[in-house]
């Protein structure tokens, strides 16, 4: 099994719902609490597993705004795991989730330097590295209703721009979406083989107007009165 996320850039409106749902689940989750620094002060910041980037493509008026959520990609070749001196970072054989054992981590930051996606967050209060767990403490919890055994970000996304599933199963919704919509991975040249994929914006359906245009302008005196019974 190779679990991961598909993120649909065609429908992501950049609302940050996924980021906050992740925060609220995981702050009481297996690596919680996710510390907030100066939450009511001059420079509020904190530990988040999922952050949304916003950027623009093209020059006005041919510009497009892209909202780009980023979290751990659960790479097949996870360098963050390779460089970990304590063995705290590991990739699970059974489902491909990359995790950090909070009991072994000493907060040395090697893994965050190795991660090209900026997915790792050092919690200065616990002194340990934290990251997306794919809500491993939700998705297998048999006491949670089956349809809700999904990562919090997927569960909450109002634009249904996030999908969760097994990329090893070619018929899973995530595999099909990637196949049908031209899903791609970030920075393939690094050969980290990230599990998470992104779906590009769909092309716009052209709406033909030639026939209507051909009708041309019609003088009102030429309109044919239609008998319609009220």
């Amino acid at each position, binding site marked *: 099994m190779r679990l991961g996320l598909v993120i649909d850039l065609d429908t992501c409106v950049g*609302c940050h719902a996924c980021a906050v749902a992740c925060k609220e689940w995981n702050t009481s989750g297996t690596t919680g609490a996710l510390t907030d620094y100066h939450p009511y002060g001059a420079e509020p910041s904190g530990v988040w597993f999922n952050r949304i980037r916003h950027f623009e493509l093209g020059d*006005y008026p041919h*510009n497009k705004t892209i909202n780009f959520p980023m979290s751990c990609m659960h790479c097949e070749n996870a360098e963050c795991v390779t460089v970990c001196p304590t063995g705290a970072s590991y990739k699970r054989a059974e489902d491909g989730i990359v995790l950090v054992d909070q009991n072994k981590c000493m907060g040395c930051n090697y893994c965050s330097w190795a991660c090209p996606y900026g997915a790792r967050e050092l919690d200065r209060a616990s002194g340990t590295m934290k990251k997306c767990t794919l809500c491993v403490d939700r998705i297998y919890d048999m006491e949670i209703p089956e*349809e809700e055994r999904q990562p919090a970000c997927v569960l909450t996304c109002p634009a249904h721009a996030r999908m969760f599933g097994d990329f090893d199963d070619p018929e899973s919704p995530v595999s099909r979406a990637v196949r049908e919509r031209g899903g791609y991975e970030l920075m393939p040249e690094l050969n980290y083989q990230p599990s998470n994929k992104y779906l590009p*914006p769909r092309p716009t359906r052209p709406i033909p107007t030639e026939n209507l245009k051909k*009708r041309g302008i019609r003088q009102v005196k030429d309109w044919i009165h239609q008998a319609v019974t009220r």
Partner: protein
Amino acid sequence: MTDQVTVFEDHKNQRIEYSTCYMCACRCGIKVTIENDNVRFIQGNRNHPTNQGVLCAKGSAGIMKQNSPGKLRQPLLRKPGTARGAGEFVPISWEKALDMLTARLQNIRSTNPDKLAFFTGRDQMQALTGLWAQQFGTLNWAAHGGFCSVNMAAGGLYMMPFAFWEFGDPDWDRTKYFMLWGVAEDHASNPIKIALEKLKRRGAKFVAINPARTGYQAIADEWVAIKPGTDGLLALSMVHVLLERELFDWDFLIRYTNAPFLIIDAPGSSDHGLFWRNAAGHPQVWDMCTQNFADGMEAGSNPSLSLLDKHITPAGRTVRTVMSLMIEKYLDASYAPEQVSKITGVPAETIERLALEMAQVAFEETIEIACEWTDWTGRKHDKFIGRPVSMYAMRGVSAHSNGFQSARAIHLLQILLGTIDCPGGFCAKPPYPKPVPPPVKPAQHSAPNQPLSSSPLGYPTGPEDLVIDEQGNPKRIDKAFSWETPLSIQGLLHMVITNAHNYDPYRIDTLILFMANMAWNSSMNTAEIQKMLVAKDSEDGEYRIPFIVVSDAYHSEMVNFADLILPDTTYLERYDTLSMLDRPISETDAVCDSIRHPILKTNRDVRAWQEVLVDLAGRLQFPAFVHENGEKRYQDYKDFIVNYQKEPGIGFLSGWRGKNGDQHLRGEPNPRQWEAYIDHQSFFQHHLPLNIRYFRFVNQAYLDFAVEAAYIPKAEPMFIEIYSEPLQRFRLAGEGVYDGPRPTQPADRERLAKYFDPLPFWYEPLEQQRVSAEEYPFFAVNQRPMMMYHSWDSQNAWLRQIIAQNFLYMNRQRGEHLGIADKSWVWVESHNGKIRVQVKLIEGCQEDTVWTWNAIGKQSGAWALSPDAPEATRGFLMNHLISELLPEKTGERRLTNSDPITGQAAWYDLRVRIYPAAPGEEGTWPTFPTIKPLPDEPRPVDRLRYHTHPPVNLKS
């Protein structure tokens, strides 16, 4: 999937509760996991009609709203001997506070009830607050619609049986072409996001018209960068294109609108432009088959649109159809795309193409749903025909002084395409459709110790319905329903403080504000408003607004100006109803209402405002709230909701009525109704059968259903009024020929004559007519961030990590041309003032426009933020630039900066000039004194490690 190595959290100490979110106005269903009386997790309720399981950033951040240090903790009284606004408060017990308030209100009610002004902000219980005001007997009540989006409500409801906002929605599952006008990220939040994905998945086209490209526009198939305030003109240019090519729905216009109605053509006479009516008072049509006049309200005629003809009545009067007026007006070259392009900034080719695309989808990609239904004439149909083009518009169109007519222009476009309440079109949400306009008139008179004869708010249909005295002067403190803004159906909260300060039209005694931040982001001209709140009368030395009561759950800027603070609960700590009598949560295909109930115990000495209102109503002996012997009729809010009946069988909640809880929509009170709602996840949903899902304004079975449910008084068709006779009556009054009340002041006469066009039209926004475009070359507007709702969320530890400072966004090429660098500080000046702000240069901004996020800026110290919070030091309000009054004009009294028809606050009419700040000039300006913390307000913590249980580690 199973897992052998994960240890899961212990659910034994957890309970699940279902309630309704209050982080914005969407009112999504929430499923809340509570662990040891702390919130473990808030998620969307999968079964809920509004959000279907999803939840936005605000909703999930409800945990941090519940844990905000800015929560109010106890009733507080301004410390005797200290000045209002100084922030010195002393605790007072609820009993003492309510005794004091009761005595004060009793005195007002027994002498002059209008001396109480009661206005509510983020009020989700207007049916109760309105009833309370009516029972008190003051004319001076309204919620915040006047500064929010009344133009969308009024623009729709004076033309159609429903409107944008909470009154209607696109048929999201079937529409193939969706046009979104202006900013709508806050209304609606999750429903529109859910819908946009559906559209995209189905390959429908999504066109976004907005000067800014962020938010929903980011994913639009086409972004139309329009100049602010010109939307109505763009819509009417598309109307021009459609008419010019005879691309409209003939059947729809003749059957369902007043396009064939005959209008008296007698300029200068008192009935010019009014319908020519028969003895029964019905408008007449010209029957093209009988070649004679016929009753327009009777079935069976074949009305002619009489495009170019006029008719002569037996009495010799000249009459013509509404359609002939439309043709004359909209085929005029001033609406041609080439002309309109110069004003809107939208290329002529784009205007024409968009109009044709919609015609293509409406008329060539028609959809049909097989279903037997009967219309009001008794005619049987075997299908619903759908023209799958839909639109939505909200604040972006609303917040201009031409917003009412612009909303009508957008509706006109939909009407010509025949996309109203049809499959794939724009559909009503019960209790709508309602007659045009809804048959409720505002109360006109108040008297000591007497309830008003009706609600303080309603829908005037002519000058007779205004709330003015014999001299024609306003009777309300906000001047609603006066000549200045006759159709101000939701009042003008943004004028209350200015008018009360100026004793214009009179001095009030007490101002009660519920959850309205009028000392900050909800007022125009904020700095001056703060001065007015503390101004004293030069003769008696008292405050010009003698007593201010504020109820809120949090330490807002407004709370600081209260004389008496009545602390509200949070949304997780109280009972609420989202009622069909008020602003329900219905979907287009279902009647829905919902509740909140206390899922957390409060740990503060606070009371829900609705409890306080019911309590006060008993203390003040309101007739509807006491028995004949004077005993309280209702124990508390919960009891009131169950037992109050508007008419037999109709109460606040529709579900589980009747003694046994087995009746819906209508039925006797059910003493266990709250429990029934709680057992059903806090909402009630009644799906409409397919035969009453569409064309409901003329669908006989729906009309009968709506009478039974008390949504409408009579099962009569509700025709679309493209041509508005009420507007024409006001115009005649302005022209001095109306057979009834007429204004005397030239400014009123001119405004009525000019703006009360019975057909939708476009005019330059009022402030812009008086401000030089050369001197102030930029339009300045606000957009709504999806992760923040107005002023509420800056106190939220998680949401403010996403945004704690707003910037002034500017078109990059334009900024570079002006020598303005990205992230630099600039001065922004309007006719009313100046501010210093930080700029960001972006592509997604129309080149003549600058914009910012609404209400991120805060007064230092408010909301329990640390005084150096970026919201106060780097964030800003545009409000300082906006005057609540139009620029002065010689010989004219000062007029409100609002739509001249509805009184909608014209926030987005602003024009500014921008220039770089001097080197070293940094930080926001103006700044305000730091608000003192309230007694017992916790100090901001340095670290927050919120969790409801110790982490459950994985087995390793």
